């Protein structure tokens, strides 16, 4: 854009320069013409009505006729030719004199006409010619001057002119640059905000924009809202399908509970539903959320504690921690980890969290048997088939690991100091 504008400026200035040079040229040529016409008038004053040339008079005005080193004149009439010996060779006049013929008089003429030609030295020559009609025939008066007389002042004026134009071009381009930067700044800010929406840092752009951008900002916000609604709808649709399937599957399971083979198939259907439900939840992730960690953890500790009455769950989470994780995703993530820990714990589970720069580091530790080092990596790998290990460590850990990865955090498994499993993860702080 800047380049196009700069080019356009340069072209406009070049045209202006050319026009000004042309105008200047015409003014200078007109000035020259006036001087040549004055010479012609002097020459004409030496021609009488009969076409005789008054040589004495010519001698008297001679000083005025030789205005410059290469200025030449000639009088061509019935009495022969007078004038400079090296008069330049002129082209035939191409254009007839303009305008109506002047009225007939003793020295009736058709007005001076321009002529071009070349001097013997080779230089171009500009000339004016006046034809005076006399009873004895036409007398042709010609005055010539070298073209360089015209060119020199033009060139003299042209270089400063070009310099000035170049300076104007530079200033205009710089102004354009500044204008572009300043004028496009709101667009750049808008782009940053859209990027922030995509990254999950905000959910809408500022609508307080310059008038030209306000409709765009409103459209972007509508788009972001539609997007969020579609996320929620996708999540809801997947959950509804899974839930709708669960009740008939439960009825089937009751019918088939005395038939182990069919019961195993029911179990498989159930695992598949859970797998895809978890996947749908993870795929419909919303990174724009901010959830307070402590209340979520308290609710989960109560729930997991009620489900596993034998396990005692200790909570070590500061009240002011807020994570950039959707509340349901956080519940899902920590619920699965706590449930896993409580299921495998001998007696104690600890949930701890600390702020670590832009992150919140979370730790779930149990005092159970732990997982062998060789198994740990495989179990926690995101994308591990969730149904591979049924109700063991795998299911919950794989969901948690996948959710953590989707929020840009990391999850690792370790041996707790007491020998149990320590799950360490990072979540983005809000």
């Amino acid at each position, binding site marked *: 854009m800047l380049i196009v504008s700069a080019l356009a400026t340069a072209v406009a200035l070049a045209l202006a320069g050319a026009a000004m040079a042309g105008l200047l040229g015409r003014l200078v040529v007109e000035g020259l013409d006036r001087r040549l016409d004055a010479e012609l008038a002097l020459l004409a004053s030496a021609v009488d009505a009969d076409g005789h040339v008054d040589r004495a008079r010519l001698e008297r005005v001679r000083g005025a006729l030789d205005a410059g080193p290469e200025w030449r004149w000639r009088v061509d009439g019935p009495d022969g030719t007078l004038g400079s010996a090296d008069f330049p060779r002129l082209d035939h006049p191409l254009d007839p004199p303009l305008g109506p013929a002047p009225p007939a008089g003793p020295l009736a003429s058709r007005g001076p006409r321009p002529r071009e030609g070349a001097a013997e030295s080779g230089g171009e020559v500009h000339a004016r010619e006046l034809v005076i009609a006399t009873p004895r025939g036409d007398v042709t008066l010609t005055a010539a001057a070298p073209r360089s007389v015209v060119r020199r002042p033009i060139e003299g004026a042209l270089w400063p002119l070009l310099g000035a134009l170049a300076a104007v071009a530079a200033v205009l381009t710089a102004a354009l640059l500044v204008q572009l930067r300043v004028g496009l700044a709101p667009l750049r800010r808008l782009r940053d905000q859209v990027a922030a929406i995509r990254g999950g840092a905000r959910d809408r752009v500022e609508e307080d924009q310059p008038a030209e951008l306000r409709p765009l900002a409103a459209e972007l916000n509508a788009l972001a809202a539609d997007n969020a609604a579609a996320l929620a709808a996708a999540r809801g649709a997947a*959950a509804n399908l899974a839930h709708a399937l*669960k009740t008939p*599957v439960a009825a*089937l399971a009751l019918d088939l*509970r005395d038939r182990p083979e069919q019961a195993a198939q029911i179990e498989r259907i159930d695992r598949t539903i859970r797998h895809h439900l978890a996947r749908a939840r993870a795929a419909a992730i919303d990174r724009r959320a901010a959830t307070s960690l402590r209340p979520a953890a308290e609710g989960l500790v*109560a*729930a997991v504690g009620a489900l596993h009455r034998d396990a005692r769950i200790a909570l070590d989470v500061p009240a002011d921690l807020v994570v950039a994780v959707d509340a349901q995703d956080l519940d*899902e993530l920590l619920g699965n980890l706590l449930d896993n820990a409580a299921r495998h714990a001998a007696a104690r589970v600890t949930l701890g969290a600390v702020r670590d720069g832009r992150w919140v580091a979370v730790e779930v530790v149990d005092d159970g048997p732990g997982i062998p080092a060789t198994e740990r990596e495989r179990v926690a790998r995101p994308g591990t088939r969730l149904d591979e290990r049924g109700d063991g460590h795998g299911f919950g850990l794989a969901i948690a690991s996948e959710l953590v990865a989707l929020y840009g955090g990391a999850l690792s498994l370790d041996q707790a100091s007491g020998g149990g499993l320590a799950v360490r993860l990072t979540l983005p702080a809000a």
Partner: protein
Amino acid sequence: MRILLVEDDRDLGPRIARALRDERCAVDLVADGVDAAHLGETEAYDAAVLDLGLPGMDGVSVLRAWRAAGRDLPVLVLTARDGWSDKVSGFKAGADDYLVKPFRVEELVMRLRALVRRAAGHAQPLLRAGPLSLDAPTGTFELDGLPLKLTALEWRVLSQLMLRKGVVIERLDLLEKVYEGDADTDSNSLEVIVGRLRKKIGAALIETVRGRGYRLVGE
């Protein structure tokens, strides 16, 4: 054990009821949230199994209504909603346990027995009264270390007495907990059941408290 089963699915509800009856429970099945709220507030149950998605009034609201009315019967939420957020809100509304569909009947029954046992104040799963013992998770009675064969009604009466060992249990209270809501009850049949139980476990273990009810004795 008398259970209030709240399940609106026409296929699933009767199946759960049958499975629970197979485990010697008395079951009242309702499919509507408003009916459930009413029954839970007016009838005596050992525990409730509560679905969350109900017509009339949703399960969480039913649960809140019971708690607001001061009913502290143990409630097990049985639902298709397996999200942890659902579980948390279920427990916050006053649930005692939470089971996700599909489920194994054995697990449902085991959890119900544990809820009833804890509600009666027993922390340990094995209950004793003299030569008699009840393994609460399986619901198995033993006499002198040998399994005791009991009918469903006998089992319900004996487990009520066992859970509140040493305490006089009113006849009406016992009748309520033994018979389903729509059953014809009369106290004569209760005396018949107690008589049969005395033959099986020895007359001395069950005391008759005249004009009031029965009491299980033995340390």
